[in-house]
């Protein structure tokens, strides 16, 4: 922790120094901050949509992966393997293109509104595949004996799921889930390629404006470094929050194997 803080301070000092030497235009950096924070808010909004959606899918398919039904298992496994093997950018861009193509000229549905939405869903589906694996690992980590014991005292399947399996699963999966959330934050940057408003998209626009107006090309780096710093703050915050939650709910002996 001390080292991290030290590193952060060092980084800020380095940047400020560069600014003093005219290599990093601190002035410009501050001027674009309002625009960037708009992007940041948009990114947060996207994250708030994608993560829960991904979790729903993840839970469904994670459970499906451990199902006794062979067809359900095959379907869930295929889903997970497919979405884990495809680059998210491919999923995002092609769902966008396909939606546009399919709905071109359609009076009922506005393609330009729907296509970005479909891309976002695609991103959620992608995250869902990873969350499915986390959920599956969580389910498997709860020994069969726990379920048997619960059955033996007369709990229904739903009660068992809710009172026995889920609480144990939750604690074990927490670190991996937190990791996944940080990943989603970073993945939202890809939505910029289909012109969805978020942090990277603002960056792309700023850069193209700079180039068109023939401004100082060094400012391009200011833009990207600042954007990277903002993402870093986000992912860092997520991991800190996660740490606190983990500690609060910690049950001795119920830790995930060091992944």
């Amino acid at each position, binding site marked *: 922790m001390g080292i991290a803080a030290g590193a952060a301070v060092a980084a800020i000092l380095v940047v400020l120094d560069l600014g003093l030497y005219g290599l990093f235009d601190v002035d410009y950096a501050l001027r674009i901050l309002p625009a960037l924070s708009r992007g940041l808010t948009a990114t947060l909004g996207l994250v708030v949509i994608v993560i829960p959606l991904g979790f729903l899918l993840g839970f469904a398919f994670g459970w499906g992966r451990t199902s006794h039904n062979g067809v359900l298992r095959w379907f869930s496994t295929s889903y997970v393997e497919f979405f884990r*093997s*495809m680059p*998210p950018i491919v999923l995002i861009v092609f769902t966008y*293109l396909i939606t546009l193509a399919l709905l071109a000229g359609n009076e009922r549905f506005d393609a330009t509104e729907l296509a970005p939405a479909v891309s976002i869903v695609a991103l959620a589906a992608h995250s869902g595949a990873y969350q499915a694996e986390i959920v599956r690992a969580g389910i498997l980590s709860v020994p069969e004996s726990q379920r048997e014991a619960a059955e033996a005292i007369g709990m229904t399947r739903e009660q068992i799921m809710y009172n026995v399996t889920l609480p144990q699963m939750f604690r074990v999966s927490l670190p991996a889930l937190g990791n996944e959330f940080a*990943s989603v934050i970073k993945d939202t940057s890809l939505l910029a390629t289909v012109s969805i408003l978020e942090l990277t998209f603002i*960056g792309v626009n700023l850069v193209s404006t700079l180039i068109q107006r023939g401004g100082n090309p060094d400012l391009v780096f200011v833009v990207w470094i600042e954007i990277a710093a903002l993402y870093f703050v986000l992912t860092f915050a997520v991991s800190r929050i996660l740490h606190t939650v983990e500690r609060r709910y910690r049950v001795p002996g119920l830790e995930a194997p060091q992944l």
Partner: protein
Amino acid sequence: MILIRGAPSAGRAGRRRDATIVRSTGNLTATLVFIIVLLVVLDRLGAVSIPFMVQWWPFLVTPAATALGATTIAFVVGFVIAVPLGLVRAYGPDVVRRKAPASVVVAPLYGLTTGYVEAIRGTPAFVQILLISAAATRAFTGLPNVELWAGVLALTVNTIGYQAEVFRAGFQSVGQGQVDAAKSIGMRPTQIFVYITLPQSLRIILLPLTNEWIGLFKASALLWYVAVRELMWAGNYLGYTQVHPIEAFFLVAFFYLLIIIPLSRGVSYLERKKRIPGLGVPEPTRPRRAGPRPAASPAAPGP
């Protein structure tokens, strides 16, 4: 799934099996059949054009090779640089704590390395690529294929951050007892690292490292945005310029799946085969690209 049973032992006795091999290739076959049927149906419906796919798939081959090449070069160069960084990350704190004279050099090195790794893992690969491509294309304007090399540079910078963590975890997962034993027979620290830590780590990091390659390969798709003619670019060309997005998607998906799935299965299989009894590794979660990264750090259960 197809369950293949070995010869049952004497007697029928229902459920008794001697050898049951679950073939997940059965799973794969079922999926392939499903996709082919889907394609044919869609073709009949006029939604996709199989002739288009048949005509255009060779177009993707060279770009796919570019993607593979870029990924592998970045990966290998990154590997060479990440190992010493992993060393610093794994043993740095110890050196400092022991107040060894080398601490003067090691402490700042550790700080820098940690800063680098955290920065890479905490920021989107996409932004890294945009930043580094802008810088590199400006710095090396005359170079032929400068966009490609800039992209490879960005991928390298990215993979170093993740591989360093894989190595760190690998080195640290070798139990203290192993090191104590090595010391007690008179081995020097360098010897301990080369003959005990390294061999044990290598077996442990094989899976996360492969996952890292796969993640890097998926990230190479982002190079499309910075004017590199790789697989995603080719697919986008077919989908957008040639206006056949659905067919293009199928083709691109085929390429990615055909490369990635056998690779990850192959490694799991190899890992199981070559496993030294007693050097197990629990299923690590996946490291990801275009963003994500868990510290792929499986722990070795000690003896």
